[in-house]
């Protein structure tokens, strides 16, 4: 019997390290109670940040035997039955055992798969996922997007791994903080350091702008000058939209110190052929769909460059584009002197 070639549902390419590195905690929370840190993590991490995006699936017509081979070769205990992103059911180890026992291993999966499914949505906080794992006995849940398409799968292990990683990062930070001498930490401690990342999904315009809106809120809470907040928000928004409409997905990073705010947009390709051309007003590779949504006029990079005090862009074809916009918060010495 020919083995069934696994179908891998291609979501956004998942780089575990990158996903796990998302959303480091607010430095302010470090001084607080550890339960606060955990609660914040559970709310801030979304299912989409933790789930596996490459899901091995099988079509309805495939046999249980083919499902069994697929599960064995990929060392998984269940396989979603899915066609064109639509989820029809799940074949689990129990279904295979029943098939072996009953002698119907050559039946199509659709005949014996579980169809009464419990699923999670990609935007749900991890706290929801944990509740589901407590309430149901399933080892994993399929994850659907807002269009009810299968976009990933999540297991308890994925959640625990992500939480443990984040907590270990925070513990290391705490250890560093407490072990340094006062002299060593004086600069860092005096800096009101803050860093946060947002995942930006390719073509997901329903969420695009979300990070920029968050960033504006964070900066306003910190009483940063209104006109600077506006410039930062404009760059953040343009760069977020760029990741969404031009790249294969990426992250938007906010970093705040005493002296500056930095917005960095990192994406996973396709890269920019001619950076100078791309940074000119009115040059764009956007299609009609993007234009119909009010963007794609070729002003994203030039707008970001215009509002930033320092602007840096690096790109490699087929690999990535990184854009960094720095905004000075403290007046430069020359400006102070001229003012006085």
């Amino acid at each position, binding site marked *: 019997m020919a083995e069934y070639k696994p179908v891998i549902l291609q979501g956004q390419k998942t780089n575990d390290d990158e996903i796990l590195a998302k959303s480091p905690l607010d430095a302010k929370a470090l001084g607080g109670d550890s339960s606060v840190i955990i609660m914040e993590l559970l709310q801030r991490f979304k299912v989409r940040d933790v789930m596996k995006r490459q899901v091995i699936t099988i079509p309805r017509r495939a046999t249980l035997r083919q499902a069994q081979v697929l599960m064995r070769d990929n060392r998984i205990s269940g396989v979603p039955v899915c066609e064109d992103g639509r989820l029809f059911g799940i074949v689990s180890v129990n279904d295979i055992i029943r098939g072996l026992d009953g002698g119907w291993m050559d039946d199509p999966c659709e005949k014996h798969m579980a169809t009464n499914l419990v699923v999670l949505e990609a935007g749900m906080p991890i706290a929801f996922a944990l509740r589901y794992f407590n309430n149901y006995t399933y080892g994993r849940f399929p994850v659907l997007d807002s269009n009810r398409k299968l976009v990933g799968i999540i297991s308890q292990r994925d959640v625990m791994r992500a939480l443990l990683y984040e907590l270990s990062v925070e513990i290391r930070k705490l250890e560093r903080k407490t072990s340094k001498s006062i002299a060593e930490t004086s600069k860092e401690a005096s800096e009101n350091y803050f860093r946060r990342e947002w995942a930006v999904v390719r073509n997901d*315009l*329903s969420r*695009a*702008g*979300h990070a*920029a*809106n968050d960033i*504006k809120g964070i900066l306003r809470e910190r009483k940063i000058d*209104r*006109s600077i907040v*506006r410039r930062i*928000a*404009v760059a953040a*928004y*343009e760069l977020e*939209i760029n990741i969404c409409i031009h790249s294969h997905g990426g992250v938007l990073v906010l970093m705040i110190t005493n002296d500056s705010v930095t917005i960095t947009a990192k994406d996973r390709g396709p890269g920019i052929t001619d950076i100078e051309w791309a940074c000119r007003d009115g040059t764009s590779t956007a299609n009609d769909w993007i234009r119909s*949504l*009010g*963007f794609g*006029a070729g*002003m*994203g990079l030039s*707008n970001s460059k215009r509002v930033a005090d320092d602007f840096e862009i690096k790109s490699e074809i087929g690999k990535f584009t990184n854009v960094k916009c720095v905004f000075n918060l403290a007046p430069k010495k020359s400006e102070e002197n001229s003012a006085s």
Partner: protein
Amino acid sequence: MTIADVVKILDGKLVAGDGTSPRAVGEVVANDLMSDVLLYDADDILLVTSLASDQAIRTAHIVGAMGVVVHNAKPLSETMLKVSEDLGIPLVSSPLSKYDACVRLHDAFLAEERG
């Protein structure tokens, strides 16, 4: 001219956000291209647009707009209304064309100046 005045002037309907806000319109920006809107450095913008999408509201929030008018009575999605509520941006639907809406707002500004 507050958002409540805008609703009256444009024969419109407030579909999301606080209609009692005392914020007055500083400038009217009529544009469907959001990157253009992001270039305006003015306070209390009223954005008049035919772009009936979440991005119109998100853009308005970024530039600190006091409200958004979608003209030609374009149908507005539930998510757009929710984003308006969440970001505190009053959203008005007007049956007028963009040109007529702008003319009426201009006349209202002139009347305000005359006292």
